């Protein structure tokens, strides 16, 4: 039953844009799907394995710059960045993991936050390598119509979704959750927590990195403040998962839809645009207090409440 739903939705997503959507609508869809990928990746490490990262922008940015630097320095098509970013980001995540995964709970969160900021400042300062604050711009657009970009990110999202589902349902998934629930107990049960946390981190980083490389190709322009952004990338990634539903399959997807639509709505209302941080902050606070497991995670509770009302 569950497998049918996802296949159905995938089929829907493949067919629907052929009906002819405006460029703006396609853009929204592409962003929704891209954020779903980032959210699913974050969810694997944070929601399932319990390691809350405040620095996913690091992986996004490394992926984006891999694609960008290939174009800028080697004159290659930035699309090569997609496969190459897997290698580069995984390698980077091994180093970052080595430094950060030994820290528990909130210290891991803070250390990843630090890594994100350090990478941003580094990208700003290594001007010879990254063009610094000027950023990298791709002059030739691969396609004018958005629909091809859409199918590429949809493919990435489908691969991400099915891979993560496979992982969670396997021994790896059980080990991740065991580590999240009680790391010491997990160690005593023979689980090499360092190894498995690293695996979770590498997978999470790789998917986020591909999204970053895609972003470079799709938007055509990146700079350190855009792709290594704490509030606009790392924290939005957390919000996507927290709003949608931590440790669920569909949570990040729901969260991506809500967050992207919300951002668009806020942007289009004239005076509200400047206040988008405030509104996001308020949303975050509200979700944490009232619906800490997100929408998908809170459904059982909401369902119970509704059912109880009917009984009385």
């Amino acid at each position, binding site marked *: 039953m569950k497998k049918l739903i996802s296949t159905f939705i995938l089929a829907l997503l493949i067919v629907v844009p052929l009906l002819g959507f405006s460029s703006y609508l396609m853009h929204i869809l592409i962003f929704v799907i891209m954020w779903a990928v980032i959210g699913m990746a974050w969810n694997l490490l944070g929601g399932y394995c319990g390691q809350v990262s405040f620095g996913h922008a690091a992986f996004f940015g490394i992926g984006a710059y891999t694609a960008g630097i290939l174009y800028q320095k080697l004159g290659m098509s930035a699309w090569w960045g997609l496969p190459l970013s897997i290698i580069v980001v995984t390698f980077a995540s091994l180093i970052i993991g080595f430094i950060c995964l030994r820290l528990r709970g909130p210290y891991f969160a803070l250390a990843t936050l630090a890594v994100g900021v350090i990478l941003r400042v580094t990208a700003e300062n290594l001007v010879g390598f990254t063009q610094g604050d000027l950023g990298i711009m791709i002059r030739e657009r691969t396609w004018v119509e958005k629909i091809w970009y859409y199918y590429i990110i949809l493919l990435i999202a489908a691969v991400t979704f099915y891979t993560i589902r496979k992982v969670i349902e396997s021994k790896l998934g*059980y080990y991740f*959750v*065991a580590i999240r*629930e*009680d790391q010491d*107990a997990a*160690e005593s*049960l*023979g689980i090499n927590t360092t190894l498995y946390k690293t695996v979770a981190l590498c997978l999470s980083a790789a998917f986020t990195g591909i999204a970053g490389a895609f972003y470079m190709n799709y938007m055509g322009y990146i700079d350190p403040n855009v792709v290594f952004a704490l509030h606009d990338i790392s924290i939005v990634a957390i919000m996507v998962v927290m709003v949608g539903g931590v440790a669920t399959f569909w949570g990040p997807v729901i969260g991506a839809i809500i967050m992207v639509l919300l951002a668009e709505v806020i942007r289009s209302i004239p005076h509200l645009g400047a206040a988008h941080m405030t509104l996001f902050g308020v949303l975050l606070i509200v979700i944490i207090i009232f619906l800490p497991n997100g929408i998908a995670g809170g459904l059982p509770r909401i369902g119970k409440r509704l059912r109880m009302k009917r009984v009385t």
Partner: protein
Amino acid sequence: MLVCRNISIFFGGLAALSNISFSVGKGEILGLIGPNGAGKTTLFNVINGFYRPSEGDVSFKDRKISCLSPHQICALGIARTFQVVKPLQRMSVYDNVLASAFLRAKNRTQADNTAHDILEFAGLYDVKDLISKGLPLGKRKRLEIARALATGPEMLLLDESFAGLNPTELNESIDIIKKIKAQGITMMIIEHHMKVIMSISDRIVALNYGEKIAEGTPREISVNPPVIAAYLGDTASA
């Protein structure tokens, strides 16, 4: 099977364990007793790999394990339970045991089989789908044991698995211990419940203030003056 030689461990300036030496033979049940704070759980933490001893070493089947990490020690065959039970709270009882079973299982089917067998063995099969957070204490303690067993250990360290149980639960747990012994698994048990530990242990080691004060059969221990003094005060032994 397990040999501890001159184990000492210091926290800050305090010697939590001082010069502890003993051995556990294959298939026997060694009881570990002592007043609160004597260092029993600390000793388990050293054997299990959570602490590295400041002095001395631990060997299991003639192999030094005091430098290994807990998951490596578990893979070698020592499993443990925790005094304050640590269920994997948001997972079901079944998933708790399944997660442990993956250690020795070659594939999912094998792990499932092990989980089934262990749950039946421990009498938890009827609650297997309950979320472990909602279990009553007695069943949670049994889940701890079941989980440890699912890792296919040769030796089991049980930390106060009988504390807080009512008489019925107590008897059920004692039965399980006897069944485990019948399978040839060596055990080391920390317990305060005197009747229980006296009845099931083959030998007993007594600790007080981090030092070993006695070692012997249950009968010898029950009349040993330092042990009586530790539990009941100096006047009682006089």
